[in-house]
């Protein structure tokens, strides 16, 4: 599913460059549930952003489903983000002026699905995450846990093969966090998509099949499996 070789990412820092990811190698099989752990600043979020095609890298190779992403144009990247990748952020990134339903519909609309069908599907997905009664609510009218459920519904509506979660429970209390985790697990069991989740939470990491530890831009040796 994911094949990363020698992936390097630097940021300009003062006069020089700061290496955030240093020749990362990573293989992820289809259907795997992997957690990524590391201190803040270790480069784990950058790695997830690169995998999610939100950012670009300096050198190395990143193949998604066998296609080298470095050679895909902007349009192709947009299509891949739309169809193949779902992304869930720590701070939800919902559009404040849109209702839950409209937020969830967005990926469908950008994928060219007619509005009526998109709306119906968005409703199904919101029901799936337990928000069937809050379709018209704006993000500000929802609790943190509910907002994250909306974000998960949005990430999944185009039925991507890859779901990326960047500290999905980071801003939630432990009970709500546990519920979100439970939801993700249920969806994983049901849909068999590949999941990469960044977390500080050992409990979440424990649910994953594999845990990667990142330190100073490198994946630590022997971190696979717990």
């Amino acid at each position: 599913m994911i094949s990363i070789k020698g992936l390097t990412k630097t940021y300009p820092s003062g006069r020089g460059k700061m290496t955030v990811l240093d020749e990362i190698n990573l293989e992820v099989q289809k259907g795997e549930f992997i957690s990524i752990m590391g201190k803040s600043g270790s480069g784990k979020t950058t790695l997830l952003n690169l995998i999610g095609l939100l950012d670009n890298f300096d050198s190395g190779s990143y193949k998604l489903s066998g296609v080298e992403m470095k050679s895909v144009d902007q349009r192709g990247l947009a299509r891949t983000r739309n169809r193949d990748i779902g992304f869930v952020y720590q701070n939800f990134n919902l559009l404040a002026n849109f209702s839950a339903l409209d937020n969830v519909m967005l990926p469908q609309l950008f994928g060219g699905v007619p509005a009526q069908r998109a709306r119906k599907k968005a409703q199904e997905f919101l029901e799936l995450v337990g928000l069937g009664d809050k379709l018209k609510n704006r993000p500000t009218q929802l609790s943190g846990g509910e907002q994250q459920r909306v974000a998960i519904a949005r990430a999944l509506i185009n039925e991507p093969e890859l779901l990326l979660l960047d500290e999905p429970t980071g801003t939630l209390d432990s009970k709500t966090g546990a519920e979100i985790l439970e939801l993700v697990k249920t969806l994983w069991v049901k849909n068999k998509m590949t999941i990469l989740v960044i977390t500080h939470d050992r409990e979440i990491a424990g649910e994953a099949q594999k845990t990667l530890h990142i330190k100073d831009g490198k994946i630590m040796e022997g971190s696979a499996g717990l």
Partner: protein
Amino acid sequence: MSILQILKSSFKSIFARKLRSILTMLGVIIGIMAVIVLVGIGQGTTSSVMENMQSLGGNIVTINFRSNNPTYDELKTMLQNVQTASITPVSSSQGTAVYKTNSESMSLTGTTATYLDSQSLTLMAGRFISDVDNENRSNVVVLGGTIAKSLFDDSYKALGKLLRINNVYYTVIGLLSSENSDVMNNSGNAVILPIATLQKSSVDKSISRAYVMGMKDTDGSVLANRINTVLLKTLTSNDYSTFGQEQVLETMSSVSNSLSLMLGGIAAISLIVGGIGVMNIMLVSVTERTREIGVKKAVGATTGAILKQFLIEALVLCGLGGVIGVGLAAILGSVVNSMGITFTGNAGISLLAFGISLLIGIIFGLLPAIKASKLKPIDALKYE
């Protein structure tokens, strides 16, 4: 996304940010309204002045005598070889009119029947002095509505009554409408007698002024030239001056044009200020929109889709503002009209103002959007 959906989402987004939308539209509304109303007033004033002037007759030449004033008959002889529709003499003198206990001092105008047409006057009641009145030196008088009212309390009562002017009794035979009385034409206070009647007791039969109306197809300036040619055979240029409507028209039109230009300039400034307002709001809202763009890109929107959305949104916003602006201008125009200032709507100017506003909206709505849509999704998402 289909255009229809983008339109729907534009309206949604416009209504979601009401204050921002109103502020943006306000610039467009005020700009368009100012242009249409000011240019409309400028053009309306110009055309109403022109109409007024032209209603006085485009080919009437006024001769004012300063010295060696001829009599009416002498003037007719001088002008016998000039083709004219009418020659209207005017002889003036002062008088005091008395009716019962009311008394008014006034200037008297002695003239002929053609005075009514050459001065574009209208009768409110009765008849104007006729050629027969002049032949018979009848003691008849035509009064302006205002003066008739002050003498007879009710102007209509004056008709047929005897009015004593300088101790001679005159029958009031007609009343002039003072409706289009203005600076140029003070018909409300006119007291008009047959010229022969006015001059019958005086030795001096000379006239002070004459209105010469040309034939229908004679140009005013041509007529003035011919008149000057024949008058200079017996008079010098110091004795008289001619004044054609053409000259007045020319002067008035140049005044009106500079008025229009000035109003247009003020309007253009409003439009520019409005445009700057639109620009400011569009630039200010970029932070918010950049994150929105980030979210949309992250879920798979292409740059093209995002730009299309922003373009349509700017078009809808400025178009809506433009329509409101044109509507308000029409309302304001009719208010201005009812206040007595002529307002002429101008479709060309309205369209131009509308187009400029639209252009401003698109440019300044789209520029930040283009910049933001070129960001990497992660940078747009993180934008603060």
